[in-house]
């Protein structure tokens, strides 16, 4: 599968910061979670960018902030050459025709009290996508595009299986003919055989409609298969990014390496090789100083405990935020040949 070459940025986030106030216990002082800490990323035209990391790393927050479903505390968001950080609600609603999202849990993301027809027709009506009398035809067309039978229109979400619901969610996003879709763990809740079907559908849409995706997932295998580039996040920060093959075959950041080693592979020999995976993600309420990863890093030195590593260009479209990059980069490459 060779998607068309990217040409220039479509959706960009610059230095995005977002904090949440943690829920307070009885009388406890308020605490803040840095869900996004100076995050910059770019999705190019017709590009599929993967965003990977473990739960709580801020990947979902990043996706929703870029769509302005959440408001960033600092930083800016540009879409198709326009700064949309402070776009007024009315303008933002119009922009949403071009920026869409599909969710992890397709059942939770559909209104349980609306039939598939109503769900789709509502979007078409609100955005005046087509003349009213053409709505039924347009709905039928959408269902066909995502591989659902016409009879699906009259049924409610609960009457469908997980994979079919995700198809409905995709149809809803497609109804406004978007340029970019944020897929937030869109295949994570599905069984592998269904997951493959949905990935197939998303790939077909990418080719036919020239869609761009921001593909958020914790599954490195899926990201490697489906994306061209990927960004790895840890505790609200980007640690590494680059083309998928290079990123996962020769990780530069020790965290990427750990993630890669821990990812299950359907191969008993590889799967039983001793893995060096230690520690747990610390509480985002009190992230470690310096490089957030240093308590779990086998290579950490004094500087890692004090200074936040800067993002450095590693060539070949790769970026890495690690103090040890110059010394360890080659060693890292060597360990995955």
């Amino acid at each position, binding site marked *: *599968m060779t998607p068309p070459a990217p040409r220039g940025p479509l959706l960009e986030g610059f230095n995005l910061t977002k904090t949440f106030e943690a829920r307070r216990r009885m009388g406890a002082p308020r605490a803040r979670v840095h869900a996004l800490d100076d995050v910059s990323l770019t999705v190019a035209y017709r590009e599929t960018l993967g965003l990977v990391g*473990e*739960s709580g790393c801020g990947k979902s927050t990043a996706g929703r902030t870029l769509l302005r479903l959440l408001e960033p505390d600092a930083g800016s968001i540009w879409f198709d050459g326009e700064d949309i950080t402070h776009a007024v609600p009315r303008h933002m609603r119009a922009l949403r025709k071009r920026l869409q999202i599909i969710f992890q849990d397709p059942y939770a993301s559909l209104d349980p009290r609306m039939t598939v027809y109503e769900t789709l027709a509502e979007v078409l009506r609100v955005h005046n996508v087509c003349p009213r009398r053409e709505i039924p035809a347009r709905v039928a067309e959408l269902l066909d595009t995502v591989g659902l039978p016409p009879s699906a229109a009259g049924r409610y979400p609960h009457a469908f*299986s*997980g*994979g*079919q619901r995700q198809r409905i969610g995709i149809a809803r996003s497609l109804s406004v003919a978007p340029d970019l879709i944020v897929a937030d763990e869109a295949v994570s809740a599905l*069984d*592998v*055989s*269904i*997951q*493959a*079907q949905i*990935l*197939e559908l998303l790939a077909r849409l990418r080719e036919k409609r020239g869609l761009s995706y921001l593909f958020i997932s*914790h*599954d*490195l*295998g*899926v990201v*490697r*298969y*489906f994306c061209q580039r990927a960004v790895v996040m840890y505790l609200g920060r980007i640690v590494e990014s680059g083309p998928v*093959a290079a990123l*996962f075959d020769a990780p530069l950041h020790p965290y990427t390496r*750990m*993630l*890669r*080693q*821990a*990812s*299950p*592979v*359907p*191969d*008993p*020999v*590889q*799967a*039983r090789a001793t*893995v060096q*995976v*230690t520690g*747990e*993600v610390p509480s985002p309420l009190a992230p470690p100083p310096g490089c957030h990863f240093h308590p779990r890093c086998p290579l950490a030195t004094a500087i890692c405990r004090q200074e936040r590593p800067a993002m450095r260009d590693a060539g070949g479209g790769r970026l890495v935020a690690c103090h040890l990059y110059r010394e360890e980069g080659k060693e890292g490459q060597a360990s995955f040949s």
Partner: protein
Amino acid sequence: MPGDPVLSVQGLSVQFRIGGAWRAATRGIDFDLAPNETLALVGESGCGKSITCASILGLLGGEGARVEGSIRYRGREIVGMPESELEKIRGKEIAMIFQEPMTALNPVMPVGEQIAEAISVHLGCSRAEAKTRALGFMERVRIPAAPERYRDYPHQFSGGMRQRIVIAMAMACQPRILLADEPTTALDVTIQAQILAELRDLCANLEMSMVFITHSLGVVAAIADRVAVMYAGEIVEIAPVAELFAAPRHPYTQALLQAIPRVDRETVTLRAIPGQVPAIAEFGSGCRFAPRCPRASEACQAVPPELAARGGPEGHRVACLAPAPVRERAS
């Protein structure tokens, strides 16, 4: 595998009452579990793997469920065993760990007490003794600062640590068999890798057998000695782990392996399996995979194929009328 099986399941069928009629969620499940062996039950959601697991501990009782067939633990029949007898086996001989460490622990009881509870129920020892033992197991599963954390509550631990506590609880009476129902599914991959290593280590050192339930073939590769692949309430293929991954014979197993996008190499095309898993009410009389199977013939629709060696080695059985030919393996 040497020795008599510690667990022998034969013709197991679990039925549920759905809309007034009894429907079989699983049919004709047969497998043995050897001492010190880890058997993985793998399959997609709704294939009956968790139900099979729960029926082994007799946790499915009640008006809505019915268990038929035979489950023998070291020669003793579990199906139909009175509750009071089952309580003596649960936790002591056969223990279980669950998918959600968050909800599997009692939120208002200190974790140490929850571990000690199993010990005092089964071994009838004093509070202090139970606590000492419980602490030992907390340390055994590498919970840092165990003595200080004995009286902490579940919400004060991370997801990975909670799962370690659940494991310590299951280990507390040194059971012969551990039933693990998707114990790593709710965890992040780096935690999953650690928990899998922990379980491998415990099984080896405590001479324990394990039935490991999962939907992930990657996890199977990391933990199992033998694998039983389930589809729509039946075992379709059972084989030693290396054999299954190297030379799968059932079309479903083959398709499943080709549907996984892999992180360790370039996947050019992903082969999706067309159609979807039938619901319990839609189970046919023949091979249940036939409607999605590229090799299905008319014969497949008629009778359910039996799990048999079908020309391969005795340890590798497959329930298919047209299995892939046995590959000559250059060993």
